[in-house]
């Protein structure tokens, strides 16, 4: 600690990569333990998508089978995994203003930590939470009849694909939630995401939407992830949807990361009221 601690702007911080890795994991662990007890995150990341999966399967299962000839589970399980990722992130985003107002962000910021570890820790926690709820949802899907055509090896990438979009969305949510009006903005973002819930290729194939809406349905951030997961389960080529999902994730991170870094710093340095 003493040898590797630099002092600028009056606050000591660390630069070593080991400190960065250790502190990111610590922050991620703290968040995960916190989220486990937060009813909003628990409901939105796990309970809500699980119910959505079961209910949608009951509601449109027959109709999708009649229209497309394939089981609706192959679209619904991916969709619900992505829904869990996005809405869990939003729930976590709602908790961020409280951490800022209680002074917790500031308290952690004045520790001699690696400066990037707060943000990377948060993203790491989001990634772990997303993969976790994807595992639960996939298990539910398997119980309902989902099968991997190319064997169980595809199950691992299957639960890891939603992590990409989750990290992208989490960066955007952090950038928005750390603003002074964060709570209201995240609520509005949530309302916007409900629209994505209807207009994606998981519930119904793109062809059943009105033709003017189809490009939007195919290109919106959830759909490529859903298609990649569907491809993995059905044993079809996944390179193109995976690439699209990657572009969405990288794009979201690239656009929102600077604002997230700056906003987090401002929130931590001025946050406590």
């Amino acid at each position, binding site marked *: 600690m003493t040898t590797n601690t630099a002092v600028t702007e009056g606050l000591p911080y660390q630069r070593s990569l080991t400190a960065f890795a250790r502190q990111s994991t610590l922050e991620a662990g703290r968040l995960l333990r916190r989220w486990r007890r937060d009813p909003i995150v628990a409901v939105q990341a796990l309970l809500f998508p699980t119910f959505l999966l079961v209910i949608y399967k009951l509601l449109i299962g027959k109709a999708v089978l009649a229209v497309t000839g394939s089981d609706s589970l192959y679209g619904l399980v991916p969709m619900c995994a992505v829904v869990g990722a996005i809405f869990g992130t939003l729930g976590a985003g709602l908790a961020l203003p409280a951490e800022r107002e209680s002074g917790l962000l500031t308290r952690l910021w004045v520790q001699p930590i690696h400066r990037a570890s707060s943000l990377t820790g948060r993203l790491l926690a989001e990634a772990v939470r997303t993969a976790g709820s994807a595992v639960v949802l996939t298990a539910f899907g398997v119980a309902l009849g989902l099968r991997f055509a190319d064997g169980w090896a595809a199950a691992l990438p299957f639960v890891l694909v939603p992590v990409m979009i989750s990290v992208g969305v989490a960066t955007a949510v952090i950038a928005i939630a750390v603003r002074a009006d964060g709570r209201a903005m995240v609520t509005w973002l949530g309302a916007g995401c409900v629209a994505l819930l209807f207009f994606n290729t998981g519930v119904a194939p793109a062809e*059943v939407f009105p033709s003017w809406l189809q490009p939007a349905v195919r290109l919106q951030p959830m759909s490529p992830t859903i298609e990649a997961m569907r491809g993995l389960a059905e044993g079809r080529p996944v390179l193109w949807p995976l690439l699209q999902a990657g572009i969405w994730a990288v794009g979201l991170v690239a656009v929102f990361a600077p604002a997230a870094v700056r906003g987090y710093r401002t929130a931590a340095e001025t946050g406590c009221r």
Partner: protein
Amino acid sequence: MSALTALTLRTMSGTLRDADLLFAVLAPVGCFLGFTLALGNLIDTGRMTYPQYVLPVVLVQAMLFGAMTTADRAARDRLSGFGVRLRTLPIPVVTPLAARMLYCLIRAVVALVAGTAVASMFGFRMAGGLGYAVLFVTIVLAFAMAVCLGADALGSRIGSVESSSQLLLIPQLVLVLLSTGIAPAESFPAWLGPFVRYQPVSQVTETLRGLASGHFTGVGLAVTAAWCIALLALFGCLALRMQRRMR
């Protein structure tokens, strides 16, 4: 200005700020567009067009959303100490509850108008004439009042602002999506049929749909009226009891 008016205006100015009134407009419009555009071509509703079929459940869902935000407001009034402060004033104990319910009624009318307006653009018609339309509106508003009273009682009881509306999210979702409001009972697996047919949202939406297209059965109307009156009585008593509890 009477206490009721003052407290209702207070609630309204609060919901203009936190955009609940805007949400009252956007929720039915968004849900209607979502259901119609995403599921319209997928679900077979026979001779009836999908907008005509789905609007009743969109309205019912908007009323349930309204109930969720009511739960939050009741919890906030209880927790903020404002409720305690009101109890020291020389006004009837039920006035704060009545003011919240009056706001719910206004919100329900707003949502009803917004939902019906957007559905008319997609071809929804009140085919039955004025009498049917009045009955349609009465049922929607009675249902809204019933669920709002229930949510108010829950919000007053639960004592946590954020968890009360979250608690209502899942039951709301189950009742709306597993009903004949979105798809006819034949679309569901056979074992689920009885629940889908006889749960309150299905009964209410079926009656509303009948009224909108100008024909209904006396039995259906009686069942819907019974549901609305029973829920109003039950939740009304509960909500009143909650007001008394901490005196």
